[in-house]
């Protein structure tokens, strides 16, 4: 088995036993990237020189007998909206074509403090707005399982680099499903944590009340491992919570012997692909055979959840993206004669169409012409959605749904119909609106060998329960760490 096929925890064990060096691991990873990325297109930037320098340093310290963290020497890829000092952070946008952050995101400090090796920045939809990574200004990323299909989005690069075996770990971000949907499409694991358990300091804001950085990997254990490193309170992000998720093994050991699983009927109705439905139901049956109790529940708000999500997220995005004006950083238009012309030309030339659509919608829902009617309604329904989840969790421990109603679609298929693209988020947005944790795992393949994803949701701060149940599903369903055949 090649080193690039190993999980992060397998590599960590080999490194600690000195069966392999970090430099050897990184060299294998960079060879894999060179062999595959012309086809897949995960990476916007590969930092081979600095990564190998760091790997050598870790090897030297280990050779001298220094006790190092389990993360030491492990390669990881970072979504290109998370700031890494000294490396471009473009958000896949012309607006930030040349922007180099002068600081690290908190999650990056945590990885670097534990001697993780950042190998590069991966592709995404522009400013995290999209569900296919086709909105990237720079390039198309393809699904490693079928190069004619999308990897999902907006964390498409974060998912494709795992499925191709280019790295064992990656970071994504999730505002309405942007970790979970690409995880489902690419057959990997992705966790959107409870809102507030991972610092947002250093991520370029899209929708501040919904955004969360989250771990992605090919196995549940690796996902739990990465989550244990990046989670925790941060003084630089006032929305973070005091948590104690820093022991990844404990995150997999919750007693799930009397698990009550809620199945909301609204997620299994018309519109869900029959193979997706079958695969998810098979996984649920396996849990039932192993002692779980299945309880039907209802989430009637699914009908207008997308409306709530797009109202809130676009309202916040229109405010967050007003900072991009061509003045302090980012793209600045040429041949301008006034400050107003500077703003208009820089923004019009710097942003893509999807970003412009969402800014306009945000202004619309917040505008005084509508008396902020839309935004107030959306906040009301956000609280109602939270209440529905709270009531559900009085009856059940976790909720299971498909992650997406279908498998990955063809490149270009939904580009001309934004509303059709927005429907990709229908199963995932409620978790962001309510702030609850949600994870996507592979649960099978369809007849065309495209991955299918199952989604688990839990109450706030129930990551231990979610990850333990996910670990059990991984053992029952099997075939995780399944690299695409490239």
């Amino acid at each position, binding site marked *: 088995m090649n080193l690039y096929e190993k999980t992060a925890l397998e590599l960590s064990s080999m490194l600690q036993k000195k069966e392999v060096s970090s430099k050897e691991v990184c060299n294998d990873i960079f060879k894999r990237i060179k062999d595959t990325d012309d086809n897949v297109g995960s990476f916007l930037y590969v930092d081979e020189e600095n990564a190998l320098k760091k790997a050598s340093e870790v090897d030297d310290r280990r050779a001298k007998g220094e006790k190092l963290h389990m993360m030491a020497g492990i390669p990881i890829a970072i979504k290109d909206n998370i700031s890494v000092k000294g490396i471009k952070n473009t958000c896949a946008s012309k607006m930030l074509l040349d922007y180099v952050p*002068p600081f690290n995101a908190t999650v990056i400090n945590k990885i670097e403090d534990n001697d993780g090796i950042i190998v590069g920045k991966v592709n995404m939809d522009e400013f995290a707005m999209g569900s296919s990574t086709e909105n990237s200004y720079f390039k198309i990323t393809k699904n490693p399982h079928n190069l004619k299909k999308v990897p999902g989005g907006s964390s498409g690069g974060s998912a494709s680099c795992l499925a191709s075996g280019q790295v064992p770990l990656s970071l994504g971000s999730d505002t309405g499903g942007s970790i979970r949907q690409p995880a489902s499409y690419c057959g990997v694991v992705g966790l959107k944590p409870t809102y507030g358990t991972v610092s947002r300091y250093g991520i370029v804001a899209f929708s501040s009340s919904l955004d969360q950085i989250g771990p992605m990997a090919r196995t549940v254990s690796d996902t739990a491992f990465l989550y244990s490193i990046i989670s925790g309170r941060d003084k630089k992000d006032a929305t973070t919570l005091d948590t104690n998720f820093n022991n990844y093994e404990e995150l997999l050991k919750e007693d799930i012997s009397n698990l009550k699983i809620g199945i909301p009927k609204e997620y299994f109705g018309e519109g869900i692909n029959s193979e997706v439905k079958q695969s998810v139901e098979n996984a649920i049956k396996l849990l039932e055979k192993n002692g779980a109790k299945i309880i039907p529940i209802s989430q009637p708000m699914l009908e207008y959840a997308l409306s709530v999500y797009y109202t809130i997220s676009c309202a916040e995005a229109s405010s967050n993206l007003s900072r991009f004006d*061509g*003045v302090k950083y980012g793209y600045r238009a040429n041949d301008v004669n006034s400050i107003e012309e500077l703003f208009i030309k820089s*923004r*019009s030339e710097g942003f893509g*169409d999807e970003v412009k659509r969402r800014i306009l919608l945000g202004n619309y829902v917040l505008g005084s012409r509508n008396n902020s009617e839309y935004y*107030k309604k959306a906040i009301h329904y956000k609280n109602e959605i939270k209440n529905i989840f709270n009531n559900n969790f009085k009856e059940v421990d976790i909720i299971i749904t498909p992650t997406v109603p279908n498998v990955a679609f063809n490149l270009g298929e939904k580009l001309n119909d934004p509303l059709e693209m927005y429907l990709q988020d229908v199963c995932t947005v409620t978790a962001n609106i309510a702030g609850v944790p949600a994870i996507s795992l592979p649960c099978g393949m369809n007849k065309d060998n495209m991955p299918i994803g199952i989604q688990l949701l839990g109450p706030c701060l129930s990551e231990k329960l979610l990850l333990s149940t996910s670990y059990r599903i991984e053992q029952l369903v099997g075939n995780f760490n399944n690299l695409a055949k490239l």
Partner: protein
Amino acid sequence: MKFDIDYFAKLAYLDLGDHKDKILDDLEHITDMINKMPSIKEDELILDKDYSMEFREDKVIPSLSRNDILSNAKKVQAGCIVVPKTVE
């Protein structure tokens, strides 16, 4: 309600150029979706209750250097960012 794209584009400092008609068409479909949120009476609104956040102390502490902050600006002079004239 017809989407007044010129008004909202002006608010957003955006010139939509040749894409205006397509974006308008898209937004009218998207606002149809937004309108699916059922109506509610003002007195039935559930808005956010208490939301406690920890704020840092109001003390000046070391932060980024001016050079670091200005490193991404297109044109800098005397420690300031140069932009087109704003005052006649």
